């Protein structure tokens, strides 16, 4: 168990910067998830922590010790790979014991540790099997077991569930969460799946193009996304974005006009903005209300998806091509072809400036 600190960490491959000035504090025993679209550098960041890649610039410390130049084995990390990376010619037992034999650990200790790990992960029945005789979920558990058996200070997971089918993914997600509660060790987990991030993390790190977009608890990221990117990445279905203009505003609130919606009174602090400035309005599908309407301001329903417990209504946007989504509990009265007005809940609306940064809610209101 240990804390991890990244200070202005950079990674350059050839001439291409992959990780740019990443600062991060990971507390002892925390479950941190790196999330972002593919190519955002999240796996590279994990490999930097593991020591599989070297840091180009900056400082990485584990438990207060700078480990920039330490090889992986001296960092006290265990890693679970996306492809499991099991040794194909060894049995489950040998796979888990292989890393232990080196440490000049006594035979009995190795056996005890392997058996203890196998018990936690319910692998006892499978110890004599080779990886090819295991199912995907079982291989995944062996990979975790191998990483855990060495009792590392930090457990690293590199997209461990992406090779599993949907139902198994949910099951393994639960097992990992329970494992963290049980072991209490520091875990760093990389995924491109925001659902995994939301469900597992104590703290989510959203990465985009090698930079940290936002760090926060799942609740913070959902409620107060710092940028339009985070707002669009967290939450499913994704947040609706509408172009808007600032009509009037100050540090206590503002009025904005959006095409098709009209004027809205919002609690955001717009002291830094000028009237007429182009903004982006962000509303989650669950924070919209639909009302029957007609005329130019009405949106047309182009599709309705029924999911059993809830219904997604897709609307033709006034600008751009991305359909707007409304989400409500089933049953829903709306049909394809109907014209509706959008009524956002002002308390749940997000406002982004021209640089896609979120505007904060006015402090005067926040206090009240």
């Amino acid at each position, binding site marked *: 168990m240990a804390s991890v600190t990244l200070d202005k960490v950079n990674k350059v491959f050839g001439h291409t910067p992959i990780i740019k000035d990443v600062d991060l504090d990971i507390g002892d025993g925390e479950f941190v998830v790196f999330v972002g679209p593919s190519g955002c550098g999240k796996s590279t960041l994990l490999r930097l922590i593991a020591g599989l890649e070297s840091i180009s610039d900056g400082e990485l410390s584990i438990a207060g010790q700078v480990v920039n130049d330490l090889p992986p*084995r001296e960092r006290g990390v*265990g890693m679970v790979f996306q492809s*499991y*990376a099991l040794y194909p*010619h060894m049995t489950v037992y040998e796979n888990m014991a292989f890393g232990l034999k080196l440490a000049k650990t006594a035979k009995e200790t190795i056996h005890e540790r392997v058996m203890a790990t196998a018990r936690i992960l319910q692998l006892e029945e499978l110890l004599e099997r080779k990886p090819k005789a295991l199912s995907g979920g079982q291989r995944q558990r062996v990979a975790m077991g191998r990483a855990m058996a060495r009792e590392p200070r930090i457990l690293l997971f590199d997209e461990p569930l992406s090779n599993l089918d949907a139902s198994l993914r949910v099951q393994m997600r639960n097992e990992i969460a329970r494992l963290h509660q049980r072991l209490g060790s520091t875990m760093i987990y990389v995924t491109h799946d925001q659902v995994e991030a939301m469900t597992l993390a104590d703290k989510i790190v959203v990465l985009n193009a090698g930079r940290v977009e936002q760090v926060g608890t799942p609740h913070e990221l959902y409620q107060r996304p710092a940028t339009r990117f985070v707002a669009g990445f967290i939450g499913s279905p994704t947040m609706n974005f509408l172009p808007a203009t600032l009509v009037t505003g100050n540090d206590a609130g503002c009025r904005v006009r959006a095409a098709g919606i009209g004027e809205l009174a919002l609690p955001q602090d717009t002291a830094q903005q000028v009237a007429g400035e182009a903004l982006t309005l962000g509303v989650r599908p669950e924070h919209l209300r639909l009302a029957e309407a007609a005329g130019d301001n009405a949106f047309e329903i182009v599709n309705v998806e029924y999911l059993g417990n809830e219904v997604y209504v897709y609307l033709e946007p006034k600008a751009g091509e991305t359909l707007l989504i409304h989400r409500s509990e089933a049953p829903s009265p709306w049909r394809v072809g109907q014209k509706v007005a959008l009524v956002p809940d002002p308390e749940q609306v997000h406002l982004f400036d021209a640089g896609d940064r979120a505007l904060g809610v006015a402090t005067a209101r926040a206090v009240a």
Partner: protein
Amino acid sequence: MTTTTPSAPTRARPYRGTKVRRQRVRAAWTFLAPMLVALALVAGWPLLRTFYFSLTDGTLSTLGDASFIGLENYLVYDDGAWYGLLTDPMWWRSVWNTLFFAVVSVSLEVVFGVIVALILNVEFRGRMLVRAAVLIPWAIPTIVSAKMWAWMLNDQFGIINHLLMTLGIIDAPIAWTASATYSMWAVILVDVWKTIPFVALLALAALQMLPKDCYEAAEVDGIHPVRVFFKVTLPLITPALMVAVIFRLLDALRVFDVIYVLTSNASSTMTMSIYARQQLVEFQDVGYGSAASTLLFLIIALATVAYLYLGRNRLQLGGD
């Protein structure tokens, strides 16, 4: 009535299945036939002829009048003493030479082939060039490379003696290919030089198939690279090495060209093939020579079966 209709297609289905299967079997035989005929003509027939000749007293000039003498070429008791191939110390010397040559040269080739493959498996500038260059010894015809080495190993003008003497390692030139002490090693050296690329290429192909992430896992677990090589790499490329070894072993057991060019009929390097050729061509004794050839075939077959039997588990590993 309605209950009988569904059963009709179920009855018909197995019939259609056998028809398809019969068609497939027929197609398979059609494709195999040319190969089987060719094999029977170029391998089966000569083998049978050789076996037949080994049971006769035929000579090169009297092949037509050869008469059947049973197993006398192999072993015969005559006038209080045993005669025949199986009692000829020169034959057993050849067998021993062949086995020694095969085991030593194939072992060295595997060891050095794997080392070369490991080097070629590392990313470095000009790797493609080095890979192509490594193949050259394998691409040169054996006769040419043997002649080349014969010159390099020449006792008076050879560059090897020159180099060793310049470096002060030896005082007087060594007759590498003529001396009974060195000639076998000279032959092995040339064969190893020539065949390392073959083993290296097979090993390299196997190395490139290895899962990269296993090595990263081993790195994170802090396992020493040497241990990773013996515990992970070697077991995983063993199936490919087994294939390389069987190819090389079959080649080495019937070795002729490299030895014949370098040392001719010298007894210290005489192999089974050279012995058989000497009997057949030089001594014109087709019956006796054929007996030697037949035994050579049996020994190679035996070695192959033994190897496959001993290595069956390892070979299966590769089939997964």
